[in-house]
C-alpha cells in the first residue's frame, strides 16, 4: 500500500528547475496527492500561465516516484484556484533569502500608478534601502531590484495575489 505521507516526503526531494534551492512542495505548486489502490495522482498548478517549467516538474515528479518504487503515477495540471505567493512555505521563503532572492513581501498594490513600490529587503545585507529596477526579471515570477546600501543587484520573487 502506498502511503500518502511518504509521497509528500519524496516530493520534498524534487527541486524547482528554475529555482533549484526550492522544492516543488516549498513553492506550493503541488496541490494534492490522491492515492487510489496503487495509483498515485499528483495535482500541480503553474505559478504563471506561461511557466515553461511545468513540463519538467511533471517529468521530475514521475521520475522521482519511479525511483522510489512507485510505478503507477500520473500528474494532473489544474489552474483553479490560481497559485499565489502565499503558498510558498515559510521554510521556502527562508531558503530563497539564503539563496539571494528576496521572498515576496506582503502586498504590492498593482492598481495605483507610480505608487511607491513596496520596500523590499535586500537578501544580501538586510537593508530596506532598495529600489525596483524593473517589474519584470529573469523569470516570469521575479522582478529586478537593486540595493542602494551594498549596491548589489538582486531578484525579488514578486507578490502574486
Amino acid at each position, binding site marked *: 500500500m502506498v502511503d500518502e505521507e511518504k509521497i509528500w516526503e519524496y516530493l520534498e526531494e524534487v527541486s524547482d528547475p528554475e529555482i533549484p534551492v526550492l522544492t516543488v512542495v516549498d513553492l506550493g505548486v503541488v496541490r494534492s496527492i490522491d492515492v487510489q489502490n496503487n495509483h498515485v495522482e499528483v495535482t500541480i498548478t503553474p505559478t504563471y500561465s506561461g511557466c515553461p517549467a511545468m513540463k519538467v516538474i511533471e517529468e521530475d515528479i514521475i521520475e522521482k516516484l519511479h525511483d522510489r518504487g512507485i510505478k503507477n503515477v500520473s500528474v494532473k495540471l489544474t489552474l483553479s484556484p490560481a*497559485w499565489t505567493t502565499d503558498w510558498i512555505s515559510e521554510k521556502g521563503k527562508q531558503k530563497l533569502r539564503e539563496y539571494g532572492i528576496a521572498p515576496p513581501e506582503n502586498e504590492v498594490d498593482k492598481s495605483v500608478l507610480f505608487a511607491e513600490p513596496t520596500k523590499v529587503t535586500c537578501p544580501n545585507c538586510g537593508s530596506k534601502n532598495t529600489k525596483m529596477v524593473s517589474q519584470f526579471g529573469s523569470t516570469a515570477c521575479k522582478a529586478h531590484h537593486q540595493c542602494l546600501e551594498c549596491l548589489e543587484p538582486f531578484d525579488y520573487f514578486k507578490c502574486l495575489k
Partner: protein
Amino acid sequence: MNTQEALFEYTLRIGDDSLILAHRLSEWCGHGPILEEDIAMTNIALDLIGQATTLLEYAGEVEGKGRTGDDLAFLRFDRQYKNLLLVEQPNGDFGMTMMRQFLFDAFRKPFFEKLIGAKDLRLSAIAEKSLKETKYHLKHSSEWVIRLGDGTMESHNRIQESLNTLWRYTNELFYSDEVDALLIKEGLIPNMSEIFDIWNENVKNVLAEATLTIPSNNWKQDGGRKGYHSEHLGYILAELQYMQRAYPNMEW
C-alpha cells in the same frame, strides 16, 4: 450555430488575441530600447503564450474533432484566425507598442474580472489565472504611456501619433454578435456590456495624465472576429507557421 460551436468560436477569439499579441511582443526580443524593457516585453509575451496555450487546448476539446492547441495555433489559415485587429498591428516604435498594449490591457483586466464569473468552469479558471498577470501588464503599459506622453516634445508627439493610428481599432474590443448572445443566453458566460464603461474611464484617466488627446475621428474598423484581417496578419502567420508547414508534425 449550437452552444458547442459558439463556445469553440468564443474561446478561439480570446486565445487568438493572446497568441497574436504574444507573437508581436516576441518580435522585440533582442531589440528592446533598454535591457529591462527587452525582458519585460518578452515576459509579457510568455504570459500571453501561456494563456493562448490553455485557451486553444480548451477550444480543441470543445470542438471535439481531435485538434490540439498546437494544431489550432499552427495549422489554420488567416481567415480562420479570430483575433482583434488591434493586436496584429505592427510594433512600430516602442511608444506604438506600449500604446497598443495599454489599450488592450485596459480591456483585458475588466474582461477577465467578469469572465471569472462564467458558469463554464474552464473559462473561469483561465480567467482567474490570467487576471493576476494582466494586472502587472496594465500597470507596466500605463506607466509607459504616461511617461512618454508627458515626456519630451518628441516622445509626446510620437505616442500621440500612435494613439491616432490605433484608436480606430478600439471599438472592436467590445464587438459582440450571435456567438456571445447565445452563450450569455445559455448562462455559460456573463454579460460583458459594463466593461466598456470601465475601459473608457480608465483609458480617459491615463490619457489625461499622459497629456494626450483622444482622436476626434470616430471612424471604427472591425472584422477580426469574423476572420477579416488587415494585411499584417498574413506576415505574422508566415513566420509563426513556417516550421510546421515546411516540416509537418516536426517536434523539438
